[in-house]
C-alpha cells in the first residue's frame, strides 16, 4: 500500500472513532439535555419499585406503558395487579413522561430505535439497549450480583435517579 493511502486510512479511522465517542459521550443532544429529567409520583415509586428497581417512564414509549399497565395480572410471570385508581394514576404518569413525550436525548434515541409496529415491554429488547450493551456477555448479565439485564441499578448506580451516564457505570464481579 502506498504511504499516502495508509495515512488516509489512519486519518479516517481516527475521525470515525472520535465521532463515535462524541455521539456516545457527553454533550447536549436534541434539546432537553442528554439525561432523562427527574420526574416523580408517589404511587409510581411505591408500587413499581417494591419488586424491582424503579424504571424511569422515559425508557419506553407510551404504547409500551399502556400495554404494561393493561396486563399487570401477568406481569413478566407475576401477578402485579393494582386497584383501578392506583393503576390509572400510575398509567397516566407513565404516559405523560414516556420516551415519546420526552425531549431528552436518551429517550429520543430509545424511541427511535423501536420500529413503529412493535410494542416492547422489555427495555432490554430495544435496539438502543442492545447496541449500547453489545460488549456485555450473557454470562455477565447472569452474574449473581446482577441477575439479569433488567437490573439496571446493578451497574448503573444512578439508574433509579435517571442517571445512566458512562461515568456512573461500575460492573460488579
Amino acid at each position, binding site marked *: 500500500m502506498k504511504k499516502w493511502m495508509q495515512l488516509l486510512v489512519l486519518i479516517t479511522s481516527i475521525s470515525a472513532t472520535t465521532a463515535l465517542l462524541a455521539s456516545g459521550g457527553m454533550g447536549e443532544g436534541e434539546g432537553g439535555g442528554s439525561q432523562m429529567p427527574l420526574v416523580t409520583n408517589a404511587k409510581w415509586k411505591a408500587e413499581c*419499585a*417494591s*419488586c*424491582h*428497581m424503579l424504571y424511569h417512564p422515559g425508557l419506553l414509549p407510551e404504547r409500551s406503558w399502556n400495554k404494561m399497565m393493561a396486563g399487570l395480572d401477568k406481569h413478566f410471570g*407475576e*401477578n*402485579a*395487579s393494582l386497584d383501578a385508581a392506583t393503576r390509572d394514576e400510575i398509567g397516566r404518569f407513565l404516559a405523560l413522561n414516556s420516551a415519546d413525550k420526552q425531549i431528552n436525548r436518551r429517550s429520543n434515541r430509545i424511541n427511535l430505535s423501536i420500529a413503529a409496529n412493535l410494542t416492547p415491554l422489555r427495555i432490554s429488547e430495544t435496539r438502543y439497549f442492545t447496541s449500547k450493551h453489545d460488549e456485555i456477555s450473557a454470562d455477565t448479565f447472569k452474574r449473581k450480583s*446482577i*441477575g*439479569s439485564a*433488567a*437490573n439496571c441499578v*446493578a451497574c448503573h448506580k444512578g439508574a433509579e435517579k435517571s442517571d445512566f451516564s458512562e461515568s456512573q457505570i461500575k460492573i460488579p464481579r
Partner: protein
Amino acid sequence: MRNSLIRHTCVAWALLFSINAFAATPQELLKQYESQAKQEDAKFTGFSADKGASFFKEERMHSKGKKVSCVTCHTADPRNQGKTRANKVIEPMAPSINPQRFTDVAKVEKWFGRNCNDVLERTCTVQEKGDYLQFLLSVK
C-alpha cells in the same frame, strides 16, 4: 336530642370502621384476624406461632415446576433481608426488627393476596395469616 343520638351513632360507626380499616399495630391486626376467625369458624381455638413457622418454611411444588415457599424470597430467618426474583431487597418481616411491618392493613392484605397466590396458588385462610403473624411477633 334525636339529632345528637344519630350523630353519636354515626361517630361510633365511623370509629368502628376506621379501626377496621387502619390497624396501627401488628397486635391490633392480630386481634382483627382473631375476631374474623371466630366468625368464620366456631371451633377456632387461637393462633399458633409454631404452625406459623412451619407455614412460612413449608415447601411445595408450584405448577410451574419449581419448589417454592415463603422462604424462597424472605430467607429462613424473618430478621434477615430477603430478595425478590427481580433482585430487589425485601426488608425484614419481623416487626421487632422492622417496626413498619403490619402497620398498614391495605398493604398487608395486598401482599397476602399476591404472595399467597404466588406461592400457594390460592388465597390464604385467616387461620394461616394469624398463625404467620403470631410467629413473626414471636421472633425477637
